[in-house]
C-alpha cells in the first residue's frame, strides 16, 4: 500500500505492507535510526516520535496509519539555527548516559514545553512517565527538560 508521510519536513512516499509498524518504517524505510525499539508491549517509550506534534509510541502505530501526517523524530529536532534547546539542555545537565532512551525523552520534553512553558518537577515526571530510562534515575532528565523550558522562554523574550 502506498503511503506518504512527512518526516522531519520531507515527504517520504513508500509502498509498505499494511502490517508494518511505524517504528520499523521510520528505521528501515526512512533510514532514521535515532528512533529505537526497547519492548514488545508499548511500555518503554524509546520508540516515541511526534505525530502532528503529539508524542506517540511508534511501535504501536502502523505505518499506514501515519499516511498524510507529519512525523518528527530526533533527527528533526535540530534546525538551521543549531541544536534545539532540549538537545543542548540534555547535554549540559547530563540528562543522558547510554543515550538509548534519549531521543524519545527529548521529543516528549519538547512537546511538553510547547504546551507548558514552565513545567514543575511533578509535571515533567508525569509527562515522561511513559518513557523508561535505566541509566539516569531521571533526576537529570527532569532538570534538563526544565532547563530547556527556561532557555526557550528566555529566547522567546518572556524569560
Amino acid at each position, binding site marked *: 500500500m502506498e503511503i506518504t508521510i512527512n518526516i522531519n519536513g520531507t515527504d517520504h512516499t513508500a509502498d509498505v*505492507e499494511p*502490517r*508494518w509498524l511505524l517504528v*520499523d518504517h521510520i*528505521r*528501515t524505510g526512512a533510514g*532514521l*535510526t*535515532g*528512533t*529505537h*525499539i*526497547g*519492548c*514488545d*508491549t508499548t*511500555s*518503554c517509550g*524509546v520508540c516515541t516520535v511526534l505525530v502532528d506534534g503529539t508524542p506517540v509510541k511508534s511501535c504501536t502505530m502502523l505505518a499506514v496509519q501515519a499516511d498524510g501526517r507529519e512525523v518528527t*523524530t*530526533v*533527527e528533526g*529536532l*535540530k534546525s538551521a539555527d543549531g*541544536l534545539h534547546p532540549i*538537545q543542548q539542555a*540534555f*547535554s*549540559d545537565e*547530563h540528562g*543522558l*548516559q*547510554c*543515550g*538509548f*532512551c*534519549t*531521543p524519545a525523552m*527529548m521529543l516528549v520534553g519538547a512537546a511538553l514545553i510547547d504546551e507548558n512553558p514552565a513545567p514543575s*518537577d511533578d509535571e*515533567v*515526571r*508525569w509527562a*515522561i*512517565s*511513559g*518513557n*523508561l*530510562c*535505566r*541509566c*539516569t*534515575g*531521571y*533526576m*537529570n*532528565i*527532569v532538570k534538563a527538560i526544565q532547563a530547556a523550558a527556561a532557555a526557550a522562554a528566555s529566547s522567546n523574550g518572556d524569560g
Partner: protein
Amino acid sequence: MTDTTTTPPEIGGVGHSVKRVEDARLIEGQGNFLDDIALPGMLHMALVRSPVAHARINGIDTDAATAVDGVLAVVTGELMAAHGLAWMPTLSGDTQAVLATDKVRYQGQEVAAVIATDPYAAADGAELVDVDYEMLDAITTPQQSLAEGAALIRDEKEGQTDNLAYTWETGDEAATDAAFAGADRVVSLTTHYPRSHPSPLETCGIVADVNSVTGQATIYMTSQAPHAHRTLFALVAGLPEQNIRIISPDIGGGFGNKVPIYPGYVVATAASLLIGQPVKWVETRTGNLISTGFGRDYYMTGELALTNEGRIQAMRVDMLSDQGAFYSDAQPTRYRAGLFHVCTGSYDFPHAHIKCRGAFTNKAPGGVAYRCSFRITEASYLIERLMQTAADELGIDPAELRLRNFIQPEQFPYETATGFVYDSGDYPTALRKALDAAGYDELRAEQAAARAEGRLVGIGIAHFTEAVGAGPAHTYDIAGLKMIDSAELRVHPTGKAILKLGVKTQGQGHETTFAQIVAEETGIPATDIKVIHGDTDDTPYGLGTYASRSTPVGGAATAMVARKIADKARHIAAHLLEAAPEDIERDADKFHVAGSPDQAVSIQDAAFAAYTNLPEGMEYGLEDVTYYNPPNLTFPYGSYVVVVDVDPETGVWKVRRMVALDDCGVRINPMIVEGQIHGGLTEGFAMSSMQWITFDDDGNCIGSNFMDYLVPTAWETPRFELLETVTPSPHHPIGAKGVGESATVGSPAAFVNAVVDALAHLGVRNIDMPVLPDRVWEAIDSAGG
C-alpha cells in the same frame, strides 16, 4: 565538594565536570547501536523458544516454517550438533545448550532459529516451527531441587547424580562456632534476595558477518567484554582468533546483562558461516527477560554473635542459590559464589564462616553480576539487614550499633575475617555526615511522636563497603583469562592523541573520563584526545567493563601509560631545553627547568619533537601501551539514610527522603559520578520496591515483559540528595575506586531497613524484597498492628 582538581579547565584533567563527548552523537540520533547496523545482503534471525519449563523434545517439524515466503533456513539443535555446536561452555565451567536437542530445561530456552530476508518473515517462520514436547514436572525452587527424590534436571551431564550445581565455603568454621557458643546474644535473619533482571533498554543482539572466502568473521555484538568474547568465540567455534573481529558499538545499557555469550550469538554466527551472508539477531524484550543473565536469587540465613553491648564477634552464613538450568554465573573462577564473602561489611570482627550451595532449577540460567561486583549486592544486603535486626533485637539505635562496630580509620589497610584487605576508609565520618544531613535526631523524635499518633515513619540506614576492580592476576581470572586491563596511548606530532582501551563503555562516559585521566597526566587537553574502545582489531586486550572494574583497572592502565608518555616527553623537553632530564619539572601543561619557569616546552612541542628532533639514541614516536595488573581490589563505600512514610491501612510506603553519601575515592568527573549514583540508587529502589522475576508452579516466568516486570518510571522514582567524602585508594595511580555499582549495592538495604524500622515497634523484623504493599500490610496485620 572536595576539590581534587590540579589542572585548569582548558586542560580538563581529573576533578573537572567536563561535558561528555559522547553526547554530541547521541542527542542528534546519530548513535550507532547494534540494531542500527545494516549490511548488504543481511539476513534476519528469529528464535523459537520453549513455551514450557521442562519437557523432552520428541521431534521438530520445520516444513511449514521453511515454506514461508522469505524464509531461507531453519536451524535446529540437530544441525548445530552436526557442527559440534549444540552445547557451549559457560563462564562457570558448566555447559549450556545452544539449541536444545534432548530436553528443554526452562521456559524461553532456545529450540530453533529461523533465518529470513526480513524480520517479519523470520517471526512468521518462528511461529510455524512445530515442536513435539513431552511434558515433565518443573522444579521451580532450589529447595525442591535438592529435596530427596527430585527429578534430575541435568540428566545429560556425566557424573551428575543430583541437582547440586556447586558448593563453596570460606572462613574459619571452628573459630566462628566457638564465638557463637560463647556469645551473649545471637541474632539471625533468613531472607530471599529475589531474582531480578538488569533489563537494559537495549536488548542483546548481534550482526554476524562471516566471509566464507577469506574466513574473516566480523561480529558486531552488544558486548561488555569484546576481547574476552573474541577469545571465547575462538575456543568455542574453533575459528582462528586473528580472523575474528568483535565490534561492540554504542551500547544501550549493560548492567551485567551483556557479559555472557548467549545461544543467539552462536547460532547467528554459525548461520552466517553456513549461508555465507551476514545475519542479524536482535532479541525481543520477552526473550531478554526470560532467557538472558538474571541477577541474585539467593536464599540466605545470616547470624551475628554479639556481646550485650552490641559488639559483633562473629558472623555465620548459610546460603542456597537458584542457578537455573545451567551454572553460568559470570564470575572469577576461584569463587563459586562471587565475592559474597565481602559480607562482613564495614565492621571489625575476627571470625566468619560462609557456606553456599547452588541448585539447578527449571529456570533461565545467568547469574550475572547485575550492576554489582559478583554477588556483592547480596552480601551487602545481608549484613546491613542483619545490623538492623541486631539493633532492633538488642534495643540499640541502628546508627549507634554501626558506630560501635566500624573498622576505624587507623586500622586500614584492614584484613577482614574472610581475607579481603580493605584499602582505605573513614566510616564514622561518612555515617555521621549522612546522619547530620538527614537530621537524624529530629527524625527519631518525629518518629516517636508519629507512633504515638498511630502514624508509621521509618528511618533506614545502610553503610556498605564494596570490593571492586577485579582484579589481581594471582587471584582473579574468568575462564582462565587473568583480569588485567590495558590502555594504549598515541600522541601525534601536533600533540593530539588517541587513547585505546581494553574496557568498553555502556553509558558510563569512558570517552570523556579516560581522556581526562590522560589530560591530568600529560597536560594534553581532554578535548584533544579521542578515545577508541570496543573494537578488538583496534584496541589492546582487556577483560571488559563490569564489576566496576573500568576505573580501578582500565583507568589505572590509562594513568600508567600516560605517565610513560609524560616521562618520554620530559626527556625530550630536557633535550630541547638543553638541561638534564632530572632538572625538568612539569606544570599542568608545560615542562620547564626547575627554578626557571620561563624556560618551558609545551607537551605539544615535545610531541612534535618526538617525530622531528630527538635526543641521540631515543626511539622516534610518542606512543606506548600498558597492561595493568592491579595490586589489590578497591573498596568504595557509602552511608545511606532513607526516610519513609508507611500507610498502615494499605501498606503503601513512600520515600520522603534519600540521603546518599558515597566515597569512591578521587572523582575523575564529578558530574558523571553523580549521574552513576542517581542511576544506581534508582535500581536499588527498584529491587526493594517492585522489580522481580518470579515463576508459577509450572515454571512459567512471571515478569516476561515490562507490564509484569516493573521497572520504575520517573513518577515512582524518589529524589536523591547526594553527599561525598573523598578517601583516595592508596594503591590506585590516581586514587580512584570506581562507582558505577555502589549505589545499587548499598541502597536496597537502606530502603528495606526504613520500612522495617517503621514497623519495628510492632515486632516486625523482616519483609523480603520486593517490599510490596501487600507484604507490608500482611506484616502489620500479623504483628497485630
